[in-house]
């Protein structure tokens, strides 16, 4: 070994744009997700909605009503599967690194903390989104709903919106309370998404669940059929407004989470 071998060449290396480091973390996190347990969990997420749809179809003598099938699929996939998938993939964003002893090594890189959060966010969205879209595909095949293709497109779009918005929401407990992120995220899901989201007041405007329900009603053209009391639970604005609101919420929550993470200090005793 010679000293010249350890030093880099004098030429400075070209630099990647910042998203290059996010993608590096995403690739790294994706490799971690390819474990037997995580794949089994993902398979369960794919099969569970189809199993429910199959059970319901068998009890319905005249086949499954299309609107009922869509409502069930919405509750099962963009809501349940996405929530559970994001809880598993997004909540441990910081806690996993502290426990594995990788936090210090990521944090001492320029932009490492930001890359860690945004790379994990990308991974959570891609992984959960892929599981959820496969779940919709399988469930639609099993449910034998008429005209399944437009439904597949619409539910897939709802999955993407759900994953983008809720992964950003779960990024906040992941950075504020890393060691209790899962419990805190479940509380946030229940209180913000399912309690505040169903209160017909200004507070529900800042929830992803209101936007998802409104998109479902808009895209299924259910608005005229909804009873008056149910109309209070959806937003009357067009789809583009709902999508814009989710985009604003997502960017705002991620920006806050990144800012908090940049300033967080973990004493050495936290890394156990």
């Amino acid at each position, binding site marked *: 070994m010679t000293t010249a071998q*350890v030093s880099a060449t004098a030429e400075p290396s*070209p630099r990647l744009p910042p998203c290059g480091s996010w993608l*590096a973390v995403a*690739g790294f996190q994706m*490799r971690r997700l390819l474990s037997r347990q995580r794949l089994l969990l993902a398979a369960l997420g794919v099969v569970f909605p189809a199993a429910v749809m199959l059970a319901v179809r068998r009890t319905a003598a005249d086949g499954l009503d299309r609107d009922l099938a869509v409502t069930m699929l919405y509750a099962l996939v963009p809501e349940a599967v996405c929530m559970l998938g994001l809880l598993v993939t997004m909540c441990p964003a910081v806690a996993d690194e502290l426990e594995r*002893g990788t936090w*210090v*090594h990521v944090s001492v*890189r320029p932009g490492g903390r930001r890359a860690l959060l945004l790379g994990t966010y990308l991974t959570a969205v891609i992984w959960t989104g892929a599981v959820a879209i496969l779940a919709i595909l399988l469930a639609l095949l099993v449910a034998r709903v008429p005209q399944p293709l437009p439904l597949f497109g619409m539910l897939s779009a709802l999955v993407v919106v759900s994953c983008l918005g809720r992964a950003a929401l779960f990024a906040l407990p992941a950075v504020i309370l890393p060691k209790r992120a899962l419990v805190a995220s479940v509380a946030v899901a229940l209180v913000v998404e399912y309690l505040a989201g169903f209160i017909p007041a200004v507070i529900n405007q800042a929830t992803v669940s209101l936007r998802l329900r409104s998109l479902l009603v808009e895209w299924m053209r259910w608005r005229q059929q909804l009873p008056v009391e149910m109309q209070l639970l959806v937003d009357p604005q067009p789809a583009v407004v709902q999508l814009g609101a989710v985009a604003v919420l997502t960017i705002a929550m991620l920006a806050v989470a990144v800012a908090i993470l940049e300033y967080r200090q973990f004493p050495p005793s936290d890394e156990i």
Partner: protein
Amino acid sequence: MIEVVDLVKHYRASDGSVVRAVDGVSFAVAPGEMVGLLGANGAGKTTTLRVLATLLKPTSGTARVAGCDVRTEPLGVRRQLGYVSATTGVPDRLSAREIMRSYGRLHGLDEKPLAGRIDQLVSALGLADFADRPAGRLSSGQRQRVSLARALVHDPPALVLDEPTNALDVVGARDLLRLLDVLRGDGRAILLSTHRLHEIEHRCDRFVIIDGGRVAAQGTPAEVLGPHACLEEAFFAALGQGAAS
């Protein structure tokens, strides 16, 4: 290259009391110099190193790496510093090459020069035999070498190592310290904390002994040893605990 002046770091404990982990520490490490940071558990070594690595913010005082202040220019510090810890944090499922590639990209290094840099480190640090093996199947010594390679991927002029030989056997520790000799010869400033005094007694250019967050003694080996026969004796004397039994 590394400069610490009147560094103070206080934590607030869970019971509300203030823990003075580092309380006015000052020292410097010049390019091409290896400095040993010595102290008992809880003396403030790791906290000092973590402030230097921008993982913790100082309560007061200054810490600089290559002219960049940890408080005002943390990104500059991170570009100039390599950090190695006792817990390697090397992911089991990735190979040494993949780990270096991931961390090199965190530094924004482009693919082609990064591949060249990885080849260079694989050769220089003797990783060739296991560079493509998942790290979970490597020995402690091999994992620590991978950790060192990861710290060097962006070719930093300053290296901070927190008890890097803790989990290593005698051979692994010797190999790692020889690598550090090479890196020092390369002109890098190296700050190394350890409990294993005999390993560094004849390797470091200077020692800083800290106790209770304060510098108890510092200087060249001759200055620190003084009348004592070995570093261990000098260490206990600096801590006011008499000669080692």
